[in-house]
């Protein structure tokens, strides 16, 4: 029966997940952003359903939000770059140098930190960045001033936390890259640097972009790590959190939340063509 009706089969397959994602999830998002156009009673925190652009007006007129948004995007970019730079050699080693046995062990080694609590890892970095901690000892040993708590520490900690999400897609991308391409490059006279630059990097870029979707979105939404190692800095996540969790001002929180959402949607649209979506 079904075999005659591919449309019916498709509907049966897509129906439940689309109800979940398309109706429930998208619906929740839509409801949130509708809330951004309402207002709340500042004292009781009760949402009043009157249409107003006040939240957005505040968001765009106060410089501080632009500063925070730019800072957050900057941190996300840096975290992504650090992760890409760090993940590349280890992924390359795993996929093209290590033997299968070692490869498996390395993969486990890279995945394992995912199971150690996020908070505990962040506090471990707090310890390392504190005065007298490992990082500052290392800096002092070479005669430099330790960066201490601040944006540097935030970038390092976030990059550390999201590293596995960058390594895995790059590794998978390199795994799919046939060895014969590397051999062909060497055969045509290219030294290793050339081969990496001209053959390996262009081919793994989609994988890196796939990883960057994770690092970007996770950074844009984070408010905890920056509180632990960020010194006096705050990111967009903190503003959203403070307004919803603290001030109970959901309309304004929703308005602020549109910033990372727009950033991510623009980013997704931009990377769509690279084929990154296939590499997630």
């Amino acid at each position, binding site marked *: 029966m079904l075999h005659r009706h591919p449309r019916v089969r498709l509907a049966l397959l897509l129906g439940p997940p689309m109800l979940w994602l398309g109706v429930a999830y998208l619906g929740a998002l839509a409801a949130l952003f509708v809330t951004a156009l309402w207002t709340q009673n500042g004292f009781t925190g009760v949402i009043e359903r009157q249409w107003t652009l006040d939240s957005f007006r505040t968001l765009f007129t106060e410089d501080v939000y632009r500063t925070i948004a730019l800072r957050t995007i900057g941190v996300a970019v840096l975290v992504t770059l650090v992760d890409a730079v760090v993940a590349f050699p280890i992924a390359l080693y795993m996929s093209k140098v290590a033997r299968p046995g070692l490869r498996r062990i390395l993969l486990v080694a890279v995945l394992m930190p995912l199971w150690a609590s996020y908070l505990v890892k962040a506090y471990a970095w707090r310890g390392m960045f504190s005065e007298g901690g490992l990082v500052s000892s290392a800096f002092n040993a070479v005669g430099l001033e330790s960066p201490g708590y601040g944006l540097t520490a935030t970038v390092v900690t976030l990059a550390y936390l999201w590293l596995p999400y960058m390594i895995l897609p790059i590794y998978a991308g390199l795994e799919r890259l046939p060895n014969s*391409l590397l051999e062909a*490059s*060497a*055969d*045509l006279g290219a*030294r290793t640097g050339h081969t990496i630059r001209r053959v390996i990097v262009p081919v793994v870029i989609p994988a890196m972009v796939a990883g960057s979707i994770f690092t970007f979105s996770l950074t844009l939404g984070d408010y905890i790590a920056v509180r632990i190692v960020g010194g006096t800095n705050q990111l967009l996540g903190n503003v959203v959190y403070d307004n919803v969790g603290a001030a109970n001002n959901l309309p304004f929180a929703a308005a602020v939340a549109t910033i990372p959402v727009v950033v991510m949607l623009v980013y997704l649209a931009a990377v769509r063509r690279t084929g990154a979506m296939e590499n997630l």
Partner: protein
Amino acid sequence: MSAPVEERVGTAVSLRGLRKSFGEVVAVDGVDLDLAEGEFFSMLGPSGSGKTTVLRMIAGFEEPTAGQILLGGVDVTGRPPYARDVNTVFQDYALFPHMSVLQNVEYGLRVKGVDRRARRTQAGEALETVRLSGFGDRKPSQLSGGQRQRVALARALVNRPKVLLLDEPLGALDLKLRREMQLELKALQRDVGITFVFVTHDQEEALTMSDRIAVFNGGRIEQLAGPAELYERPATAFVAGFVGTSNLLADDAAEAIIGVPGVFTVRPEKIRLQPAGAPAEPGRCTALGVVREVVYLGAATQSVVDLDAGGSLLVLQQNEGGSVQDKLELRGAQVRLTWHREHAVEIGGQ
């Protein structure tokens, strides 16, 4: 077909006692070879016989366990691939998927630092050589198998290497295309005059194209000769079987028919199939038998004849004239097979 090796100017490639083992497996077990400049040299052998491994050692992808590799008289054994004046055409072509056809072909010049304009010109010429002008802007994924094969060829040739290594370059093509590419490749080699080292497991391909052929078996060279000698005078039963159909006469049958004990091979096309009553000819061996099977091949007809003396022989008859039906009706008939005494080649039993 080609001048004997000795007359050539120089030696392009020399392999001296080349060995390679992967752990327990001995892939290449002592190979000595000298390839002349401009020669079309083929390595033929069954799967796993070590052909690819030899090629990869020449290219520098694999380090020999023992032995030396000389290119133009210079020992290059320890050098990395990019420091060797050889290029490879890979079986799967290994075209860079993110570059256009032109960029692929330019690649070798680009990494050597040839300037943009010179690069364009030379790459354009190379593409013309393989009849792909106008395809420069395409991506490899937009080409057919045969076209990709030609891009791989152009990419290697543009560097004017001393030696071109080809690992079953036609293996992925279909029969008709393969035949066409064989002719093209051979003509190209003649034009550019570069030494070709060609790996294949297709005996017809090797016979058609090569100046000399090395037959590999178990990591060693079983016989090294020109196509005709290899085909007409196989040194071992293995070669006889691998290069052409193995038509063996052994033991009693050999004694009865040829008059001497031993193992002999007779190529099917050397055998004449006659009515049983036909008169014996002097100087020809004769065997009586019954036709078990007749297969029409188009240009020829192949018959299997069970010999009265034991064993059976394949006979190939060109379909020059006469009706197909007549030939097919021979099935079950008594026949006489004859061949020149010299065409029964004694082979080192194995």
